[in-house]
């Protein structure tokens, strides 16, 4: 009993580490990833692999340059994977590499690394790509599966999208993921399976996705849009469960998260209905990311024993 360890209380720890949380998210993401590969074939695999490897290597290099310890905490894997899932399925690999470097180097490490970034790195990467490669970022194909030739087609939210069959078949195709769109955003079914996993393990809070989706549903209803279609189409499901719930870039309080969800929902509806772009999930979450510090500042839980000071007392205290 010599050399006793001196440590601060508490002396027990629940043991759910950052690492475990990150890899749980990776496991949940494997469901939409699988859907992307199934619907869009070999090229999807290359996009995913190159994006993840680039993200991890970029992080490693930057940590070396900053002379900081590199920890394989899984956060770079998530960023790389999420970034791949929101790219068009036929984008050239070199563009994927450029975007993935941007995600880690600019959107994450330039702000100080894990925990300090203001914007969700994967979404920031997508916004960057939309500006740099507008053509490639809006070239969509219908599901090609393995081997068959790619046929370009409009995404459901696109202006040129047409549908001749009944609505139920449309909903079914959107739910399963049999439609044009970004690599991992199409299959609502598999996104929901991953989301249920995260909710069951309490990795994510239900408030952001529920209020986000609820606001979009209500807003679409009020604007006379097809509510079910609006919920199933575009990147809303992937965004609501996997992007908007990013710990680092969303508020920390329960009420703050409600505000965040509602705000993202309003912006999404506004961009979709009034904006020049067909889809608004990416930019609405990025905008709400910017509001997060403000939300955290003004929406705080009321501390135990808080006594509201009357104006007179405040004045008396200052003078």
């Amino acid at each position, binding site marked *: *009993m010599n050399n006793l360890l001196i440590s601060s209380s508490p*002396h*027990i720890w629940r043991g759910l580490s*950052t690492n475990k949380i990150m890899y749980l998210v990776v496991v949940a993401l494997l469901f939409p990833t699988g859907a992307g590969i199934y619907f869009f074939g070999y090229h999807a695999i290359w996009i995913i692999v190159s994006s993840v490897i680039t993200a991890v290597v970029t992080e490693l290099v930057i940590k070396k340059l900053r002379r900081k310890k590199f920890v394989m905490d899984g*956060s770079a894997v998530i960023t790389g994977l999420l970034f791949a899932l929101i790219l068009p399925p036929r984008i050239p690999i070199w563009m994927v590499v450029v975007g993935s470097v941007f995600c880690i180097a600019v959107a994450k490490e330039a702000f100080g690394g894990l*925990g300090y970034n203001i914007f969700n790195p994967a979404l920031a990467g997508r916004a960057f790509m939309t500006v740099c490669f507008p053509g490639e970022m809006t070239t969509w194909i219908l599901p090609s599966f393995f081997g068959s030739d790619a046929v370009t087609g409009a995404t459901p939210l696109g202006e040129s999208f047409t549908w001749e069959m009944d609505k139920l078949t449309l909903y079914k195709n959107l739910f399963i993921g049999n439609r044009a769109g970004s690599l991992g955003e199409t299959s609502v079914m598999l996104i929901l399976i991953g989301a249920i996993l995260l909710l069951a393990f309490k990795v994510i809070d239900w408030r952001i996705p529920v209020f986000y989706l609820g606001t979009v549903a209500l807003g679409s209803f009020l604007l006379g849009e097809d509510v079910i279609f609006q919920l199933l189409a575009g990147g809303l499901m992937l965004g609501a469960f996997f992007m908007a719930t990013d710990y680092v870039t969303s508020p920390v309080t329960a009420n703050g998260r409600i505000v965040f969800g509602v705000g993202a929902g309003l912006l999404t509806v506004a961009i979709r209905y009034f904006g020049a772009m067909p889809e608004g999930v990416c930019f609405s979450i990025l905008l709400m990311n910017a509001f997060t510090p403000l939300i955290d500042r003004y929406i705080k839980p009321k501390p*135990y024993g*808080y006594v509201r000071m009357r104006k007179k007392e405040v004045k008396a205290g200052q003078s």
Partner: protein
Amino acid sequence: MDESRNTVIRKRSVFKGVKLSESKLTADKPIESLPLPEKIILPLQQHIGAPCSSIVNRGDYVLTGQKVADVGSFVSSPIHSSISGKVVSEVKIINPVTSNPVDALVIESDGEDKWIDLDSLINPQKEHKPSDLISLIDSLVPKDMITRIREAGIVGLGGATFPTHVKLSPPPGKKIDTFILNGCECEPYITSDHRIMLEYTLEVVLGAYIIGRILMPEKMFVAIEDNKEDAIKEIDSFIKGTNLENKFQIVSLKSRYPMGAEKTLVKTIVGREVPIGGLPLDVGVVVNNVGTSKAVYEAVVEGKPLVEKVITVTGAVNDPKNLTVRIGTPLRDLIDYCGGSDEKANTVITGGPMMGISISDIDFPVIKGTNCVLVKKGSPASDENCIRCSRCVSVCPMNLMPLMFVRGVRSGMYEVCKEHYIEDCIECGCCAYVCPANIPIVSYIKVGKSKI
């Protein structure tokens, strides 16, 4: 008689907190007496308030229970020798709580354990009926009882070590309408209060009765977590057997950490929040631990000063036990008596795993605030980046945002800590317990508090 009054009422927590695994290894082990130590080390400050100065000299022979240190200040508590023997030296030891050096007396035992003449109000040789003891207490004057409590050196034995006579003398104008006897013992591993309630039921309940006579509250509650059903039954049947059921209301609380903390307990039982920076008496409530209540009974009725207390020795020791230990006994004696520790163990904690303090030297003595000695294998916190997962926010029983304290201290912007009410923090450790980045949040908070 109203039947509903004597049934136990059940309550759930009204704060966030965490559910911990109990690890109460010694819940079924009766209290044993640790053999007399060969020497004791008595720090001259074992309470919150003014430190005492020694009133004995080197070479003096002292008896068990003899007062050896005192000070004139009201907020303080005297210290008594817990063995008979010779005062051999006065040394300085490091107080592990404050990290400041404090004076301490070293007394060597003569092995006789000769006691001072106790100023007892009853004949200790005889059996006394509880009803006789109650009428004896009824005949005492509150002021005299407070004096006897002060002279016996009684402080809050739950760990806070606030002098009990001060707590029982609320300033004029503060009306106390509720007294809560705290038998929650919400920390994992510790079972000393549990065993005290089972084996010293009379002392515990009558001690609370004495406190009730002093404070004259409208309501008295006995708060016990529902993982100690046997203690609830024991106290319930004692209260019924002595017709005290119109005085006490037993509350069985759904176990959740930190139920036993004063602020959370007051909120759960009477629904009031102690104002930030205030004390329970600001909302008309006094809370005392069951160990303190036992000591109050022994001081008032038997005239016995606080020289021993029940301590759980647990964790990675070969034979975990509940022990009655003389104050001042080196922790080494306790660990040795429990068969020594596991080879891999590298941490010795006084108190529970959530709020206890890791000590650097096992020759440090048992003090009045010690209720548990936990030996375990520990590892330093890895202190990674905060990922803002907000788990700390969702468990904080005080409704605070602990991540902001970490941010404030790491960046040196201590005003951030103040803006987020750092002084309201009770350092229960829930935040650090759940933190995925394993940040020693409580340690940051202690720094933050010292800077504002």
